[in-house]
């Protein structure tokens, strides 16, 4: 008898533990995150998951519409009107939506935007990253006749200001500064004040006391969700507000849709565990699945019927770079020759099981406006590499490749390749390159390096070649960080840059018309292939697996790669209609 009771208890516990999705609340969506957001303070946002969480809790002026891959108005009622003043100032005119309101019914006004900007520039707060990103905003001018209208005064001129100026969560002035003490300060005076200024110090103290990193509820946002639960490194639950201001918009733009009544994010670091959790109905959405798990799930008959599989080409490009300050690699012919030793086609197959896309350069291959499809794709070609080496002055001897150098000396072609340790993609690329180089009798020393040390080594120029991932986006074509001579101390690890290429990069970044940009980007891609300071090998894929019954997923190449707030269950329509 006792065995019967034990068996019954065990069976009950087990069966209730693995409830199928059908028995869960109909409009709840459970999503895997591979790391904790760490902080929900809208000023800090240390990683992508924190950014995604902030989008649920708060609204920005503009937000990315994943269905079109463009910025769309959120709190703003339209994209900003840009006005160039002289050659060093830009004015951006914004109008807030009439319907936009905080949870207590108070409208979202230009004073809230001004307060948020002052908070971002306030000394003594953990806002350094946001401050760096929005450093081009110098002032905000409110319109005395229209409390929802304001103008951002920006220093400099760039097309990207149009969307970058609107991409920060707007906070409620009353929640942190009910006495409106910051209104006496201009944005510029806040930015230049020191931490001892009494009003600003008091504000900083209030902000720190609120402990918003862990208690986002103390700062109510005007986003569609509120944080219901957060167990660090375990899960977060967001609950849909019963009454949200954007519910009254007809038709509701995609960036202002919020369908699921609950969004659960489970923090599961291990890929195998996450895949099993998906198969056991403990998850509904598995973003950024590994290539192996994705293929395996696709191959299983049992999972084919239950899950939908999406692949998009991300804006993350795997890139090999050369240290152009090294005498061995100072000439473009040598760099071009060494580029031919990479085999992107086979590497894409080996590391991504064929998903992702090869490329001619840094422009995304799916961006048909600007991608130079007339240029040849980089291909593995040992004979061509040999020819190019000889043209660069190298002579093949039994001991290797040598060429005359200064002061009657000769230099020997031998390379050290650095990449982030413990990353199988980089390791595979490095091994393939070494194998190809060995065939040409070029010694290559592989130096897998811990990520922090790698950044230091790259900054200090302690490498011949590197392999790493370069992250981009569909909005900005600004390659200065990685290729402008001004940034050789920061992100331009190849130390490349001539006056001519600097001018080209600046022209690309500031081009105003699509035609002008297309022409300049074509020149830029040709230059990149000819000079070869770095070699884009392939764009990585994003792989997404969801429950087949989930609709409006909007798989995207833009992070996070899916749209959580728009998801609906095909059989959950009646529940949603009641909201």
């Amino acid at each position, binding site marked *: 008898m006792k065995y019967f009771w034990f068996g019954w208890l065990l069976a*009950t*516990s*087990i069966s*209730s*533990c*693995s409830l199928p999705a059908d028995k869960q609340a109909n409009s709840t969506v459970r999503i895997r995150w591979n790391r904790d957001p*760490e*902080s929900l303070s809208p000023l800090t946002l*240390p990683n992508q998951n924190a950014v995604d969480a902030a989008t649920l809790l708060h609204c920005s002026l503009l937000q990315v519409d994943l269905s079109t891959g463009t910025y769309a108005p959120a709190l703003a009622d339209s994209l900003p009107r840009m006005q160039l003043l002289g050659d060093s100032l830009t004015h951006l005119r914004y109008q807030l939506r009439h319907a936009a309101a905080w949870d207590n019914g108070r409208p979202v006004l230009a004073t809230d935007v001004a307060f948020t900007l002052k908070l971002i520039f306030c*000394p003594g707060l953990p806002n*350094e*990253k946001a*401050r*760096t*990103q929005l*450093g*081009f905003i110098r002032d905000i001018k409110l319109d005395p006749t229209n409390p929802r209208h304001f103008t951002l005064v920006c*220093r*400099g001129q760039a097309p*990207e*200001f149009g969307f*970058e100026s609107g991409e920060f969560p707007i906070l409620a002035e009353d929640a942190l500064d009910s006495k409106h003490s910051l209104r006496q300060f201009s944005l510029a005076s806040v930015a230049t004040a020191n*931490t001892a200024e009494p009003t600003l110090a008091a504000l900083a103290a209030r902000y720190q006391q609120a402990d918003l*990193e*862990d208690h986002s509820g103390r700062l109510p946002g005007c986003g569609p969700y509120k944080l219901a*639960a957060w167990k*660090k*490194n375990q*899960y977060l*639950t967001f609950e849909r507000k019963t009454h949200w201001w954007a519910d009254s918009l007809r038709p509701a733009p995609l960036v202002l849709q919020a369908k699921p009544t609950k969004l*659960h994010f489970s*923090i*599961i*670091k*291990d890929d*195998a*565990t996450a895949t*099993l*959790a998906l*198969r*056991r109905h*403990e998850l509904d959405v598995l973003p950024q699945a590994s290539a192996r798990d994705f293929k395996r799930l696709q191959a299983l008959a049992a999972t084919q019927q239950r899950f939908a599989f999406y692949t998009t080409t991300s804006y993350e490009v795997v890139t090999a770079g050369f240290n152009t300050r090294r005498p061995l690699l100072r000439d473009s012919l040598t760099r071009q020759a060494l580029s031919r030793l990479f085999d992107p086609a086979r590497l894409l197959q080996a590391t991504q099981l064929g998903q992702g896309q090869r490329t001619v350069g840094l422009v995304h291959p799916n961006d048909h406006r600007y991608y130079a499809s007339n240029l040849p794709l980089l291909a593995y070609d040992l004979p061509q590499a040999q020819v190019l080496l000889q043209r660069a002055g190298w002579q093949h001897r039994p001991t290797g490749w040598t060429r005359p150098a200064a002061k009657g000396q000769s230099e020997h072609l031998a390379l050290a390749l650095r990449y982030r340790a413990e990353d199988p993609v980089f390791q595979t690329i490095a091994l393939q390159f070494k194998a190809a180089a060995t065939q040409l009798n070029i010694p290559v020393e592989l130096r897998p390096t811990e*990520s*922090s040390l790698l*950044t230091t080594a790259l900054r200090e120029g302690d490498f011949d070649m590197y392999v790493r991932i*370069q992250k981009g*986006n569909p909005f*900005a*074509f*600004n390659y*200065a*960080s*990685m290729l*402008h001579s*001004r940034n050789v101390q*920061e*992100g331009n690890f190849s130390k490349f840059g001539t006056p001519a290429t600097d001018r080209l990069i*600046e022209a690309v*970044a*500031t081009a105003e018309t699509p035609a002008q940009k297309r022409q300049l980007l074509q020149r830029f891609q040709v230059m990149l292939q000819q000079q070869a300071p770095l070699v884009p090998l392939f764009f990585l894929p994003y792989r997404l697996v969801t429950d087949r019954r989930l609709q409006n997923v909007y798989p995207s190449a833009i992070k996070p790669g899916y749209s959580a707030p728009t998801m609906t269950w095909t059989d959950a329509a009646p529940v949603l209609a009641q909201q």
Partner: protein
Amino acid sequence: MRLLGRWLAAQVGRAFLAAWAIASLVFLLSRLDAAKATDLLLGETDNLGTAVLRADADTIQHQARQAIEQRLGLAEPLFYTTRTQQAGTVSWHWHGLHNQYHRWLVGLLHGHLGLSFRDGQPIGPRWRAALAYTIPLTFLALLGAIVGALLVGLVLADGPQAALSGWRAGLHTLLTGLQGLPLFALALGLLFAFANPDMLNILPAYAGSPDDEELWGQRALRLVLPVLALVLAVLPELALLLAHTLRHELSTGYATTARAKGLSNGKLLRRHALPNAILPLLTALAGLLPALVAGAVVVETIFALPGTGRLLAEAVAMHDYPVVVAGVLFTALARLLALALADALYAWADPRIRLVP
């Protein structure tokens, strides 16, 4: 009793002193890479953006770095003194009490572990939250391993005195195999065996549940696989050691005499051999902590438990040094206290051993 008190006080004092020395060393070494804090907070350099084209980009970046250093107290001198060398002359500069190390030490004495480089938040609550998961996990695993080792050790020793045979030999081989298996393979094996729709789909795949209304029984089930993985990771070593020592005890003169007097093998094992065989087990138990800490990293990662192992591993990977220093402090303290406890238990189990304060 007074002797034991003095001895314990001396041991605990030594443990604290050693833990302080180790943590201080790690603190000072880690602060040599303080630039990492600014890198962490300012984000990665591999993203495209417009900031880099502005004429004052360098100034803005420099100001941001300065602001972070100021906010986290990294602008102060590292230690009480600084050694400088100019034109071949070495000079020492005294900074007084306004230095990072002094601030950290005073904070530590007041129970503050410092601020995370990652988000500028206090570390103490984070460690407390993580310990709330790791302590029950490791305690359950330790308990399971000890009980399991006693049972398995006694079963293995309770047989013919010649070489092991039959199912005992099989069990011995199984334990030896388990001992050689890396923990990640063991944990993944358990996961694929018991939480896999293709195999036995009877246990949850991960320990964290988003459902606050989950019953305690279901919550307990979520801990089965992590605890089992840790138990199986440490049990073989303990069980094989105990079995070996027990068999050695059974071959000694007093065991032969006891048998000659008609004592059964089982009674002989439990009443006479086990108290003598327990001593090496105590030493092994004291040495178990590093294995459990290392094991917790793997188990907490695979089963998605937010414990100290995962916190420490992620802090190391992210170069969040204040979190690492706190972890070193806890681990060193726990290890040293475990050694002191093992010494005390040794003295309790064997009256011939004397405690010297």
